[in-house]
Each structure stands twice: as C-alpha cells, then as structure tokens.
C-alpha cells in the first residue's frame, strides 16, 4: 500500500542528493532554519512600516507560491529531468509500465510532496521563526499557540497551492490554454461582480483567515480548497498534455546577422530565442522582474518616509542590482553544458556567453533606474547607476563562481547557499549603512569591480576543471 509512497520519498531524496551529495542537501533545511532565524531577528526594525498581520499575510502567500511551484515542478518536470539526468523518469510517470493506476500513483505523488516539503521547508521555517521570537520582541507571534497555528496554516497554504496547480494542470491537459485563461477571467469577473475585488481580497485566503481568527468555517473552507481540486484532478486525471508541434521561421540567422561579427553573436542569439520561446515568453520578464520591482519601489518609498536618512533611489539601485542577478538564472535554465560538451567549447566559453547575454539584459533595469532617477532626483542619477552596475556585476560574479552554469540547482546545496548568503548579505548591510552618508558613497563600491573580476577568472578556471556530469 505504502510502497509507492516510500519509493517516491526515496526518489525525491536521491534526485537532490545525487546533485549535491547527501550532506549538501541535508544542510538545506538547516540553512532555511538559520536564514529564517536571522531574518526574523531584524523583524522589529520593520514593524514601523509593516504590521504583524501583513508579515503573516506575506508568509501565507509565500507558502501558497511554494506549493504551486512544487506542484508545477513535479507535474511538468519530466523534460527538465531528462536534461539533467539523461533518460531518467519519475515514478509519477511509470503507470504505463507498472500495473498501478495513474490515479493511485498521483495520489501518492501529492502525499509525497506534502510530507517532503513540510519537513524540508515549512517546519524549519517556522522553527527558525519560533527561535527568533525567544530573543526579540515578537509582538503577536510570541505565544506558542500562535506558532503552532502558524505551522498548521502555512501547511494549509502550501497544500492549497499544490492542489490548485494540480487542478489547473488538469484543466490545461483537457482543454488547453484558452480554458485556463477563461477560468482566471471568470474568477476575476465573479469577484468584481460580487464587489470583492479589492485589496481585502488577499485577506480571504482561508488558511490565512484561520490564522487570524480560528473559526471552524475557515478551517473547513481550507479543507475544501485542498480536497475538492485534488479529488477533481484525480477523477479527471490526464497525464499526456496535448502538444501541438509548432513551427518557427529561422530567427537565429536573422539575429546573428544583426549582431554581426560580435564574438558571442551565436550564443546571445540563442539565449534571446530561448527567453522568447520558453514558457511565459517575454511576459515572464514583466511578471517576475518588472512587477516585483514596482512592489519594491513602493515599499522603499514607505521606508524612506519612516527613516528619512535612507535614500529611496539609492536603496532601489541596490535592490535592483541584487534582483538583476536572477536574470542569470533565466539564461542558464534552458540548456545544459552536456549539449555543447562535444563541440569545441569550454565551460568558461558558455559562462562568458551567458555573461554577455546577462549584460545585455541589464539594459532593462538600467533603463528603469535611469527613468526613475531622472523623474525623482536627477542629481543622484550617476551614483545610482554606478551602484546598480557594480552590485549587479559583483552578484553575478559570486553566482558564477559558486554555481557555474547551474545556479538554480547548485544553490540548493546548503553549503553553497550559505557561502552565497555570507558573500552578499554583509555587503548589502554595509551599503545600506553607507548610503546614509550621501549617494556618492557608491564610489566605494567600485572596489568591488576588481574583486568581481578576480572571482570571475577563478570561476572560469574552476568550471573548466570540473568534469561534465550532464548538467
């Protein structure tokens, strides 16, 4: 009865530990614990701009998102699996060769994800938070009963996220993108007609509502939101998503012609095609980069009002530099070095080409920053740009040195993530403090450039020495 469940747990463990080693992956929850602990220690500083309720709101939506991402990876990760592990497949896809129904396998799959992520993410997160509450004034979070409720409601949020994505993927599998879009549009329309489409809608997440006011109805509603979509998905389960084979005209040669004799023309052209044709297309730049930036600007503007010594524009340039490094992750997501290892290329050639594409993509945040600076404080334009460019370059150099061509995988290694955080966090704190002495402090950050170049050189040599393990 539990054989498949146990095998799936083992599979998940081995999949990660084969990449980072047993201890490397086992350290990950420890790191989540430590990270949450240290971040929670500075929470009192932010109490002036965000309330306890808003902090709790953020946590619940964070775990809703983690649940959605965990489900999406599990359901749609076969292509990724094949590229990382060769012709491997998950047990979730084995119903064709085992005398077990697809429904039974996927019910186990859902159970496995819940148990696994509870142990690796939710539990260390809440434990770190609870420990920090012992040392600082934790406001409404101090009581043990509140923390236990938090553990329950964050788990519920995670489960709502995973069952929602499971349900949406079932709708998609049966009816395609148009139905999915109609479903979203109908939900928004219903909320609008009922007069509930406003800021308060965010507070209607039943797991979060239950955290605020422990009512049986909210707990029941959370259960319904987990069980009904999961049950519907299992009843109407369809594994093979319809795949219409699309045709594309040759954009690669056109782009190469535009780029002329530029050394990395072929790679930059390929990267831009990857970004354009992958799931979400160029829209993901807006949703995963530009929209969060607007949110950051709003938050920093609020912070600027509370602590006038902090310059909103300078802090924004700093955050922009940090967030921009996530674009390196996008660029490295679509291929693996094994796809090129038989060509006359070194790993460092690939990294250099990605770095070129990264620098070109940095024109987007650079434009946003220039426009904001010109509008808000033209005199800060030069130091802000300088700060953004040096931080972005330093961040990507650290990322390259530590993770090479696989940041989204290698950062899951607890040790690597710890080194990454230690290389970045103190520097950011120092920048925040220095920024109080005026925006031209940014000149000090020029010192980061030679260090970043040194790291890059070291990183190139390190990844050239590293033998290709298919990723």
């Amino acid at each position, binding site marked *: 009865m539990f054989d498949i469940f146990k095998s799936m747990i083992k599979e998940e463990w081995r999949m990660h530990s084969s990449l980072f080693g047993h201890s490397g992956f086992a350290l990950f929850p420890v790191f989540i614990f430590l990270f949450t602990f240290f971040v929670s220690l500075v929470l009192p500083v932010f109490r002036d701009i965000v309330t306890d309720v808003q902090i709790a709101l953020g946590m619940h939506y964070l775990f809703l998102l983690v649940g959605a991402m965990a489900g999406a990876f599990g359901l749609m990760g076969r292509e990724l699996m094949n590229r990382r592990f060769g012709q491997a497949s998950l047990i979730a896809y084995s119903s064709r060769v085992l005398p077990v129904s697809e429904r039974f396998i996927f019910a186990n799959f859902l159970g496995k994800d819940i148990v696994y992520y509870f142990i690796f993410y939710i539990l260390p997160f809440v434990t770190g938070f609870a420990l920090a509450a012992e040392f600082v004034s934790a406001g409404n979070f101090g009581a043990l009963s509140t923390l236990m409720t938090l553990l329950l409601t964050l788990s519920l949020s995670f489960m709502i996220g995973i069952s929602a994505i499971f349900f949406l993927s079932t709708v998609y599998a049966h009816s395609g993108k148009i139905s999915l879009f109609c479903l979203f549009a109908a939900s928004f329309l219903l909320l609008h007609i009922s007069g509930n489409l406003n800021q308060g809608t965010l507070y209607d997440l039943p797991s979060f509502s239950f955290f605020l006011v422990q009512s049986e109805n909210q707990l029941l509603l959370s259960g319904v939101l987990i069980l009904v979509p999961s049950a519907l998905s299992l009843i109407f389960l369809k594994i093979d998503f319809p795949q219409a084979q699309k045709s594309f005209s*040759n954009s*690669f040669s056109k782009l190469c012609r535009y780029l002329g004799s530029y050394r990395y023309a072929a790679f930059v052209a390929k990267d831009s*095609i*990857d970004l354009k044709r992958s799931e979400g297309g160029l829209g993901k730049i807006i949703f995963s980069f530009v929209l969060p930036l607007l949110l950051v600007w709003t938050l920093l503007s609020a912070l600027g009002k509370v602590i006038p010594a902090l310059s909103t524009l300078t802090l924004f340039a700093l955050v922009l530099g940090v967030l921009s490094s996530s674009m390196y992750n996008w660029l490295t997501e679509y291929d*693996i070095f094994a796809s090129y290892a038989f060509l006359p290329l070194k790993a460092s050639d690939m990294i250099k080409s990605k770095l070129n594409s990264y620098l070109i993509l940095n024109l987007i945040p650079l434009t946003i920053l220039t426009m904001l600076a010109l509008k808000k404080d033209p005199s800060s334009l030069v130091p802000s740009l300088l700060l953004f460019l040096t931080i972005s370059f330093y961040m990507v150099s650290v990322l390259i040195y530590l993770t090479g061509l696989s940041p989204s995988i290698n950062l899951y290694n607890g040790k690597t993530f710890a080194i990454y955080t230690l290389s970045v966090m103190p520097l950011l704190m120092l920048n925040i403090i220095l920024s109080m002495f005026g925006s031209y402090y940014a000149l000090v950050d020029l010192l980061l450039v030679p260090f970043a170049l040194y790291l890059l050189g070291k990183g190139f040599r390190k990844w050239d020495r590293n033998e290709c393990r298919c990723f």
Partner: protein
Amino acid sequence: MIEVKGLSKSYGQTKAVDDVDLSIEKGELFGLLGPNGSGKTTIIKMLTGQIKPTSGTLKVHGINVLEDPLRVRELVGIIPEQETPPSFLTAEEYLHFVAKVRKMEHYEKVCDKWFEFFDFEDQKTSLCKDLSRGTRQKLMFAQAFLHEPELAIIDEPLINLDPVMQRKVKDFLRGYVEDGGTIFISTHILEIAKEICTNIGIIYRGKLIHTGRFDDPELQGKNFEDFFLELVSRWKGVSKEILKEPPKGISALV
C-alpha cells in the same frame, strides 16, 4: 589517427576503464564493442577531452588530448550517447548554431543537404524539444559531419533510427571510409559491427579484451556472436553457454 596508451579512468574504487591500449589508423572503421556499462562511453568522452583520464596518454590527429582538447573537438565530428540539442532552437537553427560555433562560412546549403539526406526537411522549422528521438539522432548525425571532419567518433550510431535510415547511415559510413575518412563507433549491437566495421575492439568491465580485424584468421569460419560470448565468458569466468542460453522458465529468474 588515434593512439591510446595505458588509459585508465576510476571513479572512487570503481575502475570504469582499465589500462587500455589502442591504435586506429586512417581509413579504418573501428567498432568498440561491449555490453552496457563496459566503459565504451567513458573511452569516447576521454578521446574527445570531455573527461580526463586517471592515467594514460591519448593522441587524436597527433594532438595530445589532455593538452589541447578544444583543437581535437574542432577537428573531430562527435555524436554523443544522448541526443540533447538545445530545446528552443528549431532543427535548422540548431545546425546553423553548430556551424557558427565551428566558424563555418556559407553553411546554409550544407545544412540543407543534410536535411535532404535524412529526409526530414519537413521538420526543419520544428523545435528540437518536439522532435522524435529518431529525428534528434538524425540531427546529431548532421551536426557531426557538417564540417566534413577526417575523423568521426560516434556513440551508438544507429540508435533510434528506423531500418531505412539505418541502411542509409551504414552506406554513408562505408562510403565515408572509402573516401579516406576514419570512423570510431561504439556499440553493443554485434550485427552492426559485423556489417560495417573493418576493425574491432571488445571491451568488458573496462578491459580491452580483444582487438583485431574482421578478416583475421582467428575469426574466420566462426560465428561472431559465439566468439564474443566466448571471450566475455572467459573473462567473466563462466561457461559461455550460461551467457548464451535463455533461462529455462520464469523460475530461473526469481
């Protein structure tokens, strides 16, 4: 064309390749034969500088692979074991990409010739991720011969190809060697080697246990499958009949 001496590769306690000596002359169609996991792919990866040996020396085209692996990969055409062209390029874009990496000029017509040869012109504009495994293999074949290398190293050349394409590829490889090219293939399918190879090497658990020509007197009048099983059983220390005969009934397996 290929000179290998004392080549070994260990992963911890496991010896994937153990003290292999090999010499392949220009104009040979050499087949490295062996069961799954015997070390064939590891040897290919070392020959092409993708991984470093634990000990031993390798020369390809007279170039020391350890000193200049990039030059070796510039000169040689390679088809890896797994067909992994980048997902979001179309088949045509992928060949153009490889041509650009290989610094070729006026490559469009050469690419078109390969689409025609393998009869998949209708898939030119499809994304690599949407191609069938057979079509991907055709694409990998095309990329390896795009720059007309003098030496091609191919891991499992006929994998995923249908019989019509298999015949076409076999004829192409024979013709290629007749025109002065050199081919190194690895396979675990004996029939392929028997049909197209001029020379063979048999590898078992990382050890090269036989090298020779197909027209060697040792092989004359012998069933090649028997010869192969005999060699393997001698190394394994069991009777070749055990390897050859299917188990009698399911009870023999459980």
